[in-house]
């Protein structure tokens, strides 16, 4: 069942088109990543999904309701966490979560606040003013605030930025569990490709206000044909150079390791020839293309 439908969404600031007509949808329980270089339109898109930026044209339907006319009802079951907003810095963590909780219909607020405090490990900073927290602690409080209303749809902008690796890993597991247990839907933007690859069912690549890719991380990575064959040669290096040239391949060498970008389907033949020509090696590894490779390719490509 689709909980989000975006149709031909456009946003122009003065004469500058930032989002140039994007359409996508999202199923209940899905984790969707939105990736893109700086200025691609990720934040603009998230703002429009939250109803805090009016699109120039197009429509956004969330839970089968139009955000333009049912913003309040939609946001009752939705929440967000972002690095581009702060909580009132004079207020303590407890006060910030308390006033935020009153903006939603929550059956037992006290119980929910205690749950949130435990879930996000906020016990030690519970009575501290936000101004006194580290960047990582602020991120945790923001994430805690985003969960206060049991959201069906959660928008997370760079959720683990500024968190230390242990806490970042805990937060990733937390959101994965939330999806498993409660079928929560999550839209995530991040510059951490490994995080997106591990968490997201599907990824949308935005560039210059257009969608360049919309598929699973594995399928997007597959669009890059080249794998990387890494060899530490111990004998017959000249033969390898000849072999590379005969296949019209390129290579680079770093610290004794020769790296050859090669199409995946050519690999078996190439390795067979390496053996046949008695080229000997002490180390071999094959790096398959990743989402990051695809992202880098899109980022470098000329705009549509």
């Amino acid at each position, binding site marked *: 069942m689709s909980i989000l439908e975006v149709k031909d969404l456009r946003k122009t600031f003065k004469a500058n088109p930032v989002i140039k007509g994007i359409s996508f949808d999202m199923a209940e329980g899905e984790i969707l990543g939105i990736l893109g270089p700086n200025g691609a339109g990720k934040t603009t898109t998230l703002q429009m999904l*939250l109803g*805090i930026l*009016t699109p120039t044209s197009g429509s956004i339907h969330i839970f089968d309701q139009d955000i333009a006319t049912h913003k309040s009802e939609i*946001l009752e079951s939705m929440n967000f966490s972002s690095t581009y*907003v702060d909580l*009132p810095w*004079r207020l303590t963590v407890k006060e910030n979560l308390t006033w935020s909780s009153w903006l939603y*219909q929550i059956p037992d607020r006290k119980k929910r606040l205690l749950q949130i405090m435990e879930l996000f490990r906020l016990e030690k900073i519970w009575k501290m003013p936000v101004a006194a927290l580290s960047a990582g602690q602020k991120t945790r409080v923001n994430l805690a605030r985003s969960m206060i209303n049991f959201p069906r749809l959660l928008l997370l902008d760079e959720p683990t930025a500024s968190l230390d690796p242990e806490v970042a890993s805990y937060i990733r597991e937390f959101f994965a569990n939330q999806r498993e247990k409660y079928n929560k839907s999550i839209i995530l933007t991040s510059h951490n490709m490994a995080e997106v690859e591990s968490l997201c069912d599907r990824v949308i690549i935005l560039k210059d206000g257009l969608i360049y890719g919309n598929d699973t991380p594995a399928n997007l990575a597959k669009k890059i044909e080249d794998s990387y064959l890494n060899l530490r040669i111990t004998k017959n290096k000249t033969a390898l150079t000849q072999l590379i040239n005969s296949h019209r391949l390129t290579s680079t060498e770093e610290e004794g390791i020769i790296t050859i970008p090669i199409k995946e389907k050519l690999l078996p033949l190439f390795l067979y020839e390496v053996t046949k020509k008695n080229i000997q090696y002490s180390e071999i590894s094959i790096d398959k293309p990743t989402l990051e490779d695809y992202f880098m390719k899109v980022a470098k490509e000329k705009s549509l």
Partner: protein
Amino acid sequence: MKLYRIWGIFLRYYYNLLHSYDRLSDMFFWPFVDLLMWGLTSRYIANSGVIDNKIILALLGGIILWIFPWRGQYEITVNLLEDIWNRNLVNLFATPILFSEWVLTLMLVGIFKSTISFAFASLIAILLYATNIYTLGLSLLPWAGLLILFGWVFGLLICGIIMRYGTKIQTLAWIGINIISPFVGVYYSISTLPPWAQSISHWVPASYVFEAMRGLVMGNPVPPSNLLFPFVLCLFYFIIALLILRSSYNHILKRGLISVE
């Protein structure tokens, strides 16, 4: 509108007040200083036999009643600024709260703080000068209502301007209603103004309240119906100010709430 959401926004400003010594002192310090200075000045003049106690009550009454429009305006504008400074506008509006709930809460915060400041100032007047503003009786209620409505007009108007043009003109929050104060006649009768200024005062609803207060103190009470025109006028200004604020809000939604700074 949902009461629990209004309570949530109210709590946000209430907690902020508890932690902000500057905002707390605002509530008590300026009314106290004004009363001290004007009270001592009036007593000095009264001791010289030039004026009587009625004038003292009129002057102190003016100071105390001015708290309502001043705080009504100040609370709306400074609370908006606090949210802009804290980059908290998105936290507020990316939630189910309605624009009307936010505006209503700001107005309620204005009433809450005005009432505390008013109670404090009137107590100081009793303790320092044995001048009891409550002797003016029930008239105080409609006067306070009209004055706070007048304060909201300026609060909403300035809020709309700051939302649209950003904090580069935030000084308006502090100047605010004082721009119009010479035409209100807080401490003097409107008749002392030059004719051109009197014609402006005619369109300033608050001026009628201070005239009525002075009339009552001097033993020439004006009939309550005299407040009907300023009340309708104030309501008209209030609607205009609301429309301007709403238009500014729609304007920033086109630019993005994040862009407000």
